């Protein structure tokens, strides 16, 4: 029995609901040596900022129990370089391209949105709002419903592209933030970004990361991610991209049941560069073994 894996997310037609999580896949170049990137539902670019960013000092990654910490610090060559060198390359995969952006200020988000207007091949913009708002004393945009609303509104005003807002999990009430961004015009939300964590080397007494703290990702955070996806699915009507610790098709299905329309794979790409392809195949197998015909039959179907 053939099963349908395609989903439509904020107007983006995807042949399957699997995409990379921003920052864990470069822009597809390296992974294209391991599998046909064109098989993915979409490709999500690494966060782009207006100006180039150097990123944090090394060490930038370390492993923790069933997870890892990273403090890349949004290293990227800036929007100009991205538009000239990365985007044209990514277009070759012939799948929807989601451009993930971040800024230090509202104006920077707005500016990037404007600069992306009419650019060929951009299917949607994803706002990474886990970064600090330097004008608001360094609190992350995503940590306050007011700031989250503002940054979404500023972006919304400046783009007609589908707008996805990627939420940070380091908050008490994720639903409140989700409501705020949806009210300001988000067409979809993606969650979760990383939890803030720290690890100390007891041999050297030093933090494992030069930046001291970093973002925790991987299987360790999956229960937090599933919970937040489920809570947000109860609260807002826009589609959700579920992210956090997805290693296998079974993990992906947990997110669909919780309410995700699509999922993004991050850390798993490092462990197994073919993880996403195996997840696509695993979802298909699960559906046909269970007698489903459509992946959408799973969305939000947790039996509560």
């Amino acid at each position, binding site marked *: 029995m053939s099963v349908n894996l395609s989903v439509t997310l904020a107007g983006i037609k995807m042949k399957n609901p699997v995409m990379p999580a921003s920052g864990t896949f470069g822009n597809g170049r390296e992974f294209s040596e391991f599998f046909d990137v064109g098989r993915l539902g979409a490709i999500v670019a690494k966060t782009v900022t207006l100006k180039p960013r150097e990123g944090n000092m*090394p060490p930038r990654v370390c492993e923790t129990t069933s997870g890892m910490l990273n403090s890349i610090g949004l290293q990227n060559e800036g929007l100009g370089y991205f538009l000239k060198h990365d985007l044209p390359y990514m277009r070759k995969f012939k799948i929807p391209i989601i451009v993930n952006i971040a800024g230090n200020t509202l104006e920077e988000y707005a500016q990037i949105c404007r600069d992306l207007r009419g650019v060929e091949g951009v299917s949607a913009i994803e706002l990474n709002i886990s970064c600090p708002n330097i004008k608001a004393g360094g609190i992350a945009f995503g940590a306050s419903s007011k700031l989250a609303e503002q940054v979404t509104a500023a972006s919304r005003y400046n783009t007609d592209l589908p707008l996805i807002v990627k939420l940070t999990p380091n908050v008490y009430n994720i639903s409140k933030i989700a409501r705020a961004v949806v009210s300001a015009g988000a067409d979809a939300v993606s969650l979760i970004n990383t939890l803030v964590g720290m690890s100390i080397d007891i041999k050297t007494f030093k933090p494992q990361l030069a930046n001291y703290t970093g973002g925790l990702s991987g299987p360790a955070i999956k229960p937090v991610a599933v919970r937040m996806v489920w809570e947000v699915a109860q609260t807002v009507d826009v589609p959700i991209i579920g992210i956090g610790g997805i290693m296998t098709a079974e993990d992906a299905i947990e997110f669909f049941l919780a309410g995700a329309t699509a999922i993004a794979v991050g850390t798993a790409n490092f462990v197994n560069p073919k993880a996403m392809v195996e997840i696509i195949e695993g979802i298909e197998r699960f559906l046909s073994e269970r007698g489903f015909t459509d992946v959408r039959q799973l969305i939000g179907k947790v039996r509560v």
Partner: protein
Amino acid sequence: MFQAKADVISKKEISPGVFSITLISPEISRNAKPGQFVHVLCGVQNDKFLLRRPFSIHRVVPGRAFEILFQVVGSGTKELSKVKIHDALDVIGPLGTSFTYSPDIKSALLLAGGLGVAPLLFLAEELTENHVMFYAMLGAQTKTKLLRYIDFKRLAKKTFAATEDGSFGHEGTVVALLNRTVHRLRPQVIYAVGPGKMLQKVAETADDFGIDCQVSIEAKMACGVGACLGCTCLTRQGFKLTCKDGPIFNARDIMWGESEVEQLSLDGYKYEAAEITDSD
């Protein structure tokens, strides 16, 4: 770059806690160059969640298999030390840059601290094949930790050994040995692999004598293929990726003494209690 399920065809504990494993992979062995590495999923079943671990390519059986040499230092290498012959390991490679030399190179010095012999033996074999004369200089804490001495002795014009406790070869560090002998050997290029602190000193000596020096840099890696930007190394040209722009760098480009080098040097863990004072 290939992802292979590589069968283990041989495994030896060549010194206590140091293992060599030979893996079948025509693609990787065919394409490997000295200095490059493989990124290995340690253990046969990876349900424990472990990121891959990088290991230099130690030797190749051309077109068929390659060997890695590693020391058990933590969870990943411990798992790896438990694989059995006929197990298949998930390996990505060959990755990163390799040692380079000009076609008319006359003499080289291969300098290894501890496990640093891993990529240098591959280089030694290639240099031998290309009829390039080279010296080898191996350092270790003590005789039993001196690895692959015989192999280098077979290939190199002359092989020097230094042990910190004097149990074999010269007494003292390999850096001290280098400093005493470099003016006589006068290599055109030094290829150095070992702990960061050692590399830094070798680089200084090389610089003093105006000798080219290439080093293999270590960094913690997540993807190993240039996608995550996790393995940066601070160079005079800014951040470079150890996995893609390295691991082999020109020693002159490295900004020594930056945090990652100190943190990752395998002998950097001797902790001095004196540094910590009681504040209670």
